[in-house]
C-alpha cells in the first residue's frame, strides 16, 4: 500500500515536472521536421463583425456601404523566433486566397519547425516572380482560370488581383447595370518590361504581446488576426466612395494598398 502511494507520488511529480519542461524548453529548431501552424484572418469592420451583403457600415467620410465580395491573396509567409531564427515557408506551399464567407478559406495553413515564434511576416498579394512564371506552375489559387466576377487575375494586363472588395453604397454613382456599386480591385506587381505601379505589400506582426505561437507536433497553433476592412477606406488616405467608386489599375490604387496594409492586428494565439 505504502509502496503504491510512493509510486503514485513519484508519477505525479514526474508528470508535473515534464509539464513544466514542456512549457519552458523549446524544442530544438529543425527545419526538416515540421509541425502545423495556421493563421486565421478574421475580417471585421471597426468594432463589428463583417457580414457579407447584410451588414451595413459607414466610412470616415460618412458614406454608408455594405460588402458583397471580399477576397485577398496572402503569400510568402515567414516566422521568426525571439533569438532571430527565421523560417521561410517554401514557395510552393505559401500562397493562400482568403475569401470572406468561406470558413475553409479564412485561414492560411502552413507547416513550420517546432518552436516558439514571436514574429510573423506575410505579403498581401503575389510576388513578381510568381506573377511572371510559366503557366504550368500556376496551380491551385494561382490558377488564372477565374472569371470576371470572382476571379483574381487580369487577363488584359497579365497579373494577379491582390485584393478585391466590392459592395453597394448610396454614395456610388449608378452604373450601366443600374447598381450603385463600388469596386476596389487592387493589383500590379511592378511591371514586366516597363516599370509601373507596384502594390506588393509586406506586413510584419509582433506576436510577443498578444501570444507567442508555440508550434508543436500533435498540436495546432493558430495565430488569430483581426482584419479591420474599415481601414481600406479609413487609413492614411480617407477614401470617398463618391469620388472613387471604382479603383483598379491606377496610381490611386497605391493609396488603397497603403491603407489596407494597416488592417491586420494580432488578437491572440490559440496554442
Amino acid at each position, binding site marked *: 500500500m505504502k509502496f503504491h502511494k510512493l509510486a503514485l507520488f513519484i508519477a505525479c511529480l514526474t508528470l508535473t515536472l515534464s509539464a513544466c519542461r514542456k512549457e519552458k524548453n523549446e524544442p530544438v529548431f529543425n527545419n526538416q521536421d515540421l509541425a502545423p501552424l495556421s493563421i486565421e484572418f478574421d475580417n471585421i469592420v471597426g468594432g463589428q463583425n463583417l457580414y457579407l451583403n447584410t451588414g451595413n457600415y459607414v466610412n470616415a467620410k460618412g458614406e454608408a456601404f455594405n460588402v458583397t465580395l471580399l477576397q485577398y491573396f496572402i503569400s510568402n509567409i515567414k516566422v521568426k523566433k525571439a533569438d532571430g531564427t527565421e523560417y521561410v515557408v517554401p514557395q510552393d506551399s505559401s500562397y493562400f486566397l482568403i475569401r470572406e464567407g468561406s470558413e475553409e478559406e479564412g485561414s492560411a495553413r502552413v507547416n513550420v519547425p517546432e518552436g516558439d515564434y514571436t514574429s510573423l511576416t506575410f505579403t498581401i498579394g503575389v510576388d513578381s516572380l510568381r506573377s*511572371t512564371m*510559366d503557366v504550368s506552375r500556376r496551380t491551385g489559387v494561382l*490558377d488564372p482560370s477565374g*472569371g470576371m466576377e470572382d476571379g483574381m487575375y487580369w487577363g488584359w*494586363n497579365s497579373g494577379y488581383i491582390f485584393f478585391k472588395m466590392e459592395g453597394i453604397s448610396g454614395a456610388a454613382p449608378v452604373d450601366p447595370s443600374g447598381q450603385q456599386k463600388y469596386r476596389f480591385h487592387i493589383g500590379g506587381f511592378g511591371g514586366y518590361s516597363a516599370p*509601373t*505601379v507596384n502594390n506588393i505589400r509586406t506586413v510584419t506582426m509582433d506576436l510577443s504581446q498578444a501570444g507567442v505561437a508555440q508550434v508543436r507536433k500533435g498540436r495546432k497553433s493558430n495565430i488569430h488576426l483581426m482584419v479591420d476592412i474599415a481601414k481600406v477606406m479609413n487609413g492614411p488616405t480617407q477614401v470617398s466612395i463618391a469620388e472613387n467608386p471604382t479603383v483598379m489599375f491606377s496610381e490611386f490604387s497605391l493609396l488603397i494598398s497603403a491603407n489596407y496594409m494597416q488592417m491586420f492586428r494580432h488578437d491572440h494565439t490559440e496554442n
Partner: protein
Amino acid sequence: MNRNIIKVTLGILMVLTLAACRKEIIEQVVAPFLGFQRPANFPEPAYHFDTNPVTEAGFELGRKLFYEPRLSRNNTISCGSCHIQSAAFTHHGHDVSHGIDDRLGKRNSPPIMNLAWNPTFMWDGGIFDLDLQPIAPITAHEEMDESVDNVLSKLRAQPAYPELFRKAFGSTEITSARFLQALSQFMVMCISSNSKYDSVQRHEGAVFTTLEAQGYQLFQQKCAACHTEPLFTDHSFRNNGIGIGFNGDPGRYDITLQDGDKYKFKVPSLRNLQYTAPYMHDGRFYTLEAVLDQYSGNVQHSPTLDPLLQQNGVLGIPLNADEKNALLAFLQTLNDRTFITNKMLAEQ
C-alpha cells in the same frame, strides 16, 4: 528455293502496296507534321519552346480549341470568329471587332501571325506570355464573356476532349495550363514566311520588279526603323501621329500608367496587308493609300509623337506620288498566299 523467292517477292510487293496506299492517304489529308521550324531568313523565336514543345497531338488539340465556340459564354464565338485565316487571322473589314451578342470591342483585331517572335501581345503589350494571351479574349465582356474555369468544364463534358488531352499531354486531365499550352502550340505554328519578299531574301529564284526594288529601297530608308525586317516590326510601342481615336484609347499607357506612353501602340507587322484591312489600332484606314497619305501629310503633333516622325522640324515622312507608288508595289511583295490557304491551319 523457288517458293522462297516467290514468298519474298510477294512480301515485298505487299509492303510496297501498303506503303503506297499510306502515302496517298497522307498526301490527301495534310503534309507530314514537322513541328516548329524557323524560316531560314527569320531570327531565333522569342517563345519558350523549352516549357511547351510543339507536338503533333498538341498542335491538333490547339487547332480544335482555336475553332471551338464553347470558349464563349453562349457557345457562339470561337477564336477563329475574329481571327479568320483568309484575312491572315484578322477580322477583315471590321474597324473594331464584334464579339458575343454583337458587342463591339475597342480595337482592331490583330493577326495571329509569327507570334513565336513576339515578346509581348495586344496593341498595348499588356500580355507578356503567349500562354496567358487567350485568357484576355475569353474573359473580356465584349469578346467571349466567359471564364476559363467554365470553358474547361464544358470541354470535360465533351466526349472527344479528354482523349485529345491524353494524346497531347499524357493523361485525360483538362487543366488551364494544358488548355493554354495547346492553344499556344497552334498559334506559334501560324507562321507567314512565304511571301515574294521571303523568296527573294532566301534566293529561291524570285526577283523584285524595278518598281518593287525601288519601293524596297524607299522602305529601307523611310520605314524600316520601326517596321524592322524580316518581321516588319521592332515590337516597340510608338505614337505614330494619327491623333487620338474615336474612343480616346490611350494605348500603352493603360499598362504602364506612364504619361510618356500615352497614345502609343505596338508597331504592327506589314506582312499580309492585302488581307488585313482596315489598318491602325482602331481600324480607321481602309486602304494603304490612306495610310501613306496619313504619314506623308497628316501626322499630328502631340507630346508623345515618335521622334522619327518629327525630324528636322518636319512632321511625318515626306513622300511624293511616285514614291508612294513604289512603296505600295513593295508592300504587295509581303503578301503570303500560302499562309492564308494553308490547310494545316484551317478548321478541320
